[in-house]
């Protein structure tokens, strides 16, 4: 599993007709659909998501397919543009955690010693804290906003990558070809980037897809608790919170669709991650 590089991973994705591959394809289609919808939002709706465009609290109609909210914003337009906000925050934050986690994990696992001990101790204590609650704490300290939310989520998930990469680096640094490279006089950064990192990539890819699902839910949680984006920025978690007040009065369309989108996006990434994991680690799925 470890010694497989990225091109062989892609090669393994190609043969069709097996459950893991269907999982990846189905999940990929869902994610691609949401990404495309949010990218071509201006073509799909004429309304600005941050401006009142109609009477408030209108039920779904041909003109406003998902109705309007208490301020008269078009909910269909908010749904499409909200996808942009969510994807932007989530991908930004998971990329930051991935880069930071992989670098710290590599250094920690490869060098070992005191540096490794201290880093592991810090990472373990961050990891043991409930992710939503830690993200809430960081958001309270930083204040609301897209970039602050992204930073809060990024910090929470650095240990996810760190632990995995460190563990693998500990194993890989003892491999014969690493020793050989060291004896030939290769520098540490060269060994890490050319001999160890490529072997980690397939595992990092799986962890990344599964981590994105947690990050989506955490982003939604921050916005739902009023700590994420600043209104009137369109965002699914925030719209859910805003619509909650109107649910007892029967305005069902305000909460139904944003939550459905959150779930679909999470399911999409989960299916990709589960499928990739099966392809890379077939021991469990084969029965």
């Amino acid at each position, binding site marked *: 599993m470890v010694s497989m590089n990225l091109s062989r991973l892609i090669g393994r994705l190609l043969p069709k007709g097996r*459950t893991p591959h269907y999982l990846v394809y189905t999940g990929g289609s869902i994610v691609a659909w949401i990404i495309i919808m949010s990218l071509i939002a201006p073509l799909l709706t004429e309304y600005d998501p941050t401006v009142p465009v109609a009477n408030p609290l209108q039920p779904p109609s041909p003109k406003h397919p998902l109705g309007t909210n208490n301020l008269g914003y078009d909910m269909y337009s908010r749904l499409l543009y909200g996808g942009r906000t969510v994807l932007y925050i989530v991908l930004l934050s998971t990329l930051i955690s991935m880069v930071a986690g992989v670098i710290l994990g590599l250094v920690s696992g490869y060098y070992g010693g005191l540096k490794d001990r201290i880093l592991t*101790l*810090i990472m373990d*204590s*961050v990891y*043991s*804290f*409930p*992710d*939503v*609650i*830690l993200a*809430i*704490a*960081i958001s*309270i*300290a*930083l*204040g609301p906003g897209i970039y602050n939310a992204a930073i809060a989520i990024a910090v929470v998930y650095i240990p996810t990558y760190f632990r995995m990469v460190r563990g693998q680096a500990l194993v890989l640094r003892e491999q014969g070809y690493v020793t050989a490279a060291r004896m030939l006089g290769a520098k540490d950064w060269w060994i890490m980037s050319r001999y160890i990192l490529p072997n980690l990539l397939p595992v990092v890819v799986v962890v990344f897809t599964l981590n994105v*699902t947690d990050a989506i*839910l955490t982003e*939604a*949680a921050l916005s*739902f*608790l*009023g*700590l994420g984006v600043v209104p009137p920025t369109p965002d699914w*978690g925030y719209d*859910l*919170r805003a619509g*909650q007040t109107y*649910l*007892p009065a*029967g305005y*069902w369309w305000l*909460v*139904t669709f*944003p*939550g*459905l989108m*959150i*779930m679909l996006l*999470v*399911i999409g990434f*989960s*299916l990709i991650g*589960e499928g990739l994991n099966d392809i890379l680690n077939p021991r*469990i799925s084969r*029965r």
Partner: protein
Amino acid sequence: MASLRSYIITRLLLVIPMIFIVLTVIFIVLRILPGDPVITVLGPKATAEERERLREQLGLNKPIYIQYIEYLGNIVRGDLGRSLIFGRRLVVDEIMDRFPATVELAITSLLFGAGLGILVGSLGALSRRKSVDILSRLYGIISYSFFIPWLGLMLQMGLSIGLGLFPVSGRIDPLLTPPRITGLYLVDSIITGRFDSFLNALWHITLPTVTLGIVISGIFAKLGRTSFSEVLVQDHVLAARARGVREPTIFRHHVAKNAIVPIMTMMGLQFALLLGGTVLTEATFSWPGMGYLLFERILYRDYNVIQGVLIIFGLLVALINLVVDILYAYVDPRVRF
């Protein structure tokens, strides 16, 4: 059992640095990260004089290392300060009022979620039909994908507002509140023999429990499926089959016991997810626990209460990890060495 005792002592000693680190993480997050707590509390429009007064009141005008020592000292003495609003109550009292509600919700959700998840997962692993296995797997993926507030609101919409089967929010009918012994209404009502209170509390806790339980059950379904699959193909199961032992007996004596151990240990790790989940569930159902307290006070920027709740959550995580590790050592002797 001597090795178990020495393991427990070592593990107990390890709790001290763990708690220390958790408290330090909270301190760093709230005080050292960019962002001024005083501006967080007062908003950007406050005058310099107002800010200075609050800074002094919260002890934020002192050097950072003195703040840190005071912070740890106060926690050791059990002093979490006073609320900045609502009659300036002691934070410890505010939290003690809400703590049992969170514990009650966490326990019922964990029981419901673990039961449901292990059932679905083991069905998938045991069934000879591939379709059942795929359904069980999909259940694991989909239930984990629910955004807790959305699932809660959908259940509320259908069952509470639509059909009127359950209350929309709250913990119990105020007239039926049992006298406080443990603070857990379900337990207190049984102790005092108030059957009507018990039913009312159960009726109120059902939807929050189902919401959080379903989301938690996804992980147990995944774990259950993997764990049962792995045990089923082991040699001792094959040997039992070859000896002609009947399937129900094999399941009870050779499969279930072995498969439950890894699930039990994973249960401890799910507490972090469970605590995060209670915050969202409580915010959705106005369930008066610590998560709802946090949610309320974020709106009012009640700094001391927010800090207090985070500290309690941190201590709770450290404590649960300790209990789980000791239980694990008790079940699996290999851990002790």
